[in-house]
């Protein structure tokens, strides 16, 4: 939580990011960023259950304040080196907003989601860890 607050402080201090809408509805999700990107996302439904399909909602912003493109979303269990048994599909909602549908974490434990984004030519991968009980 404190980390999130810190991120928001960082975000508001950097005027260039200010156009990026972070509100995902129903409370804000997580925010991750790199040198070029800032991504807000949350699962839908909010609680991820083992073996149950869920979606991820994204806002993808670039440092210049323009919308970025979500190219691919995937997830794997690093410990067991296996991916999901499902391949998520991505729908663009405009303005850097996306919905990735069809994710299933079929086991409890550590899952790493990878989020591939692009604003120009190059694709950059950001990751986030989920611990599912």
């Amino acid at each position, binding site marked *: 939580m404190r980390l999130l607050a810190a991120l928001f402080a960082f975000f508001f201090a950097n005027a260039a990011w200010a156009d990026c809408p972070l509100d995902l509805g129903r409370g804000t999700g997580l925010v991750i960023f790199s040198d070029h990107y800032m991504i807000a996302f949350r699962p839908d439904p909010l609680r991820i259950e*083992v*073996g149950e*399909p869920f979606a991820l909602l994204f806002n993808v912003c670039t440092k210049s304040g323009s919308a970025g493109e979500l190219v691919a979303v995937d997830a794997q*269990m*690093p*410990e*067991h*080196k*296996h*991916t*999901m*048994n*499902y*391949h*998520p*599909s991505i729908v663009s909602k405009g303005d850097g907003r996306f919905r990735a*549908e*069809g994710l*299933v974490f*079929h*086991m*409890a*434990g550590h899952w790493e989601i990878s989020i591939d984004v692009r604003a120009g030519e190059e694709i950059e991968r950001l990751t986030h860890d989920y611990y599912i*009980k």
Partner: protein
Amino acid sequence: MRTALLAAALLAALAAPAAAQRLLDWSEAEVALVGQHGPWPLPPARDASNRISGTPVGIALGEHLFNDARLSGDGLMSCATCHQAGRDWSDGRARGRARVDLDRRTPSLWNVGYLHWFGWTGAGDSLWAQSIRPILDPLEMAGSRERASRLLREDKDLACGYERAFGTKPDGDDERLLVDAAKALAAFQATLVSPRTRFDDFRDALVAGDREAAARYGLSEQRGLKLFIGEGNCNACHFGPRFTNGEFGDIGIAFFVRPGEVDSGRLGGIATLAASPFNLLGRYNDDPSGISARRTRHVRHLHSNFGEFRVPGLRQVGRSAAYMHNGGFATLEDVVRHYSEVSPDRLHSDGTPLVRPLGLSAQQSTDLVAFLRSLDADPPPRPAPSPLCP
């Protein structure tokens, strides 16, 4: 007198630790893991892709069809020939038998309504689609669209049952009527929910903090359960109230059917699914929201699908031998020996393997089997199906 007193004191001293030992120490983390295997029973299963799912009239029609051999080509075989109520909805054989011996075991139908992939390889994505397969398979019931639809149209009772269940007379085209028959079969099968077990009593007591009630569960069973959720890592796949995550795994069971011929498992299952006119992406899905088809739409082809089979649920497992997709093990002891001794060469994994030879002691093996047997319970007697249209 003094010896009697001494004996009583001794007895008391012996009894106290013994009574306290009736419940092993369960950490908070373990209690949470045990809790995930319940509560039981789950709420009744509903299938949005089947418009008569959960309706009493649909269930009644399905039960009659389940026992009706006229669905088969020679009029001699019904679903109940292989899925027998008195044999926990299986047939007690290592592999199914129709006109010929089949390559896979007949799974029990207990709790089948809660699945999302059907058959050993998930070749079906709905209970109704899976119920079409044996009717049309020339090796099994060898029926047909025409035969099934004629039966619904021409048999007075079934036609009446159909009209009650679907609200129209059975006069659609042959394929639609076959699908409707399968939807009734599915509505019936979804009611086959296994009874509560001794494990469930323990689980509820443990979660509620009722030590006295929890201590009624045997020590060997408790130790076996600890292995199951701990060192054994069994709950990685045998997860949740049904003891399956509903997905697929490779635990090193041989997949040669005959010399030179393999059962490709999930790989073939996905191909069959994609080719089926009855999958949830097709025209017979009654769910306009598309939510029921999410898994089918997103299922992914993976190299690791080869030789994977669906993780079986473990409720009533001790009652429905043999085991595995090919019936390769006759007893639960054999299954536990497999997990204890499986050769790592047979397990394909780049990372930390989910299954590894556990090297169990004789006592541990006994405990694990004792735990698995605590997932069994006698089902209440079934009343004979009531007439469809009295």
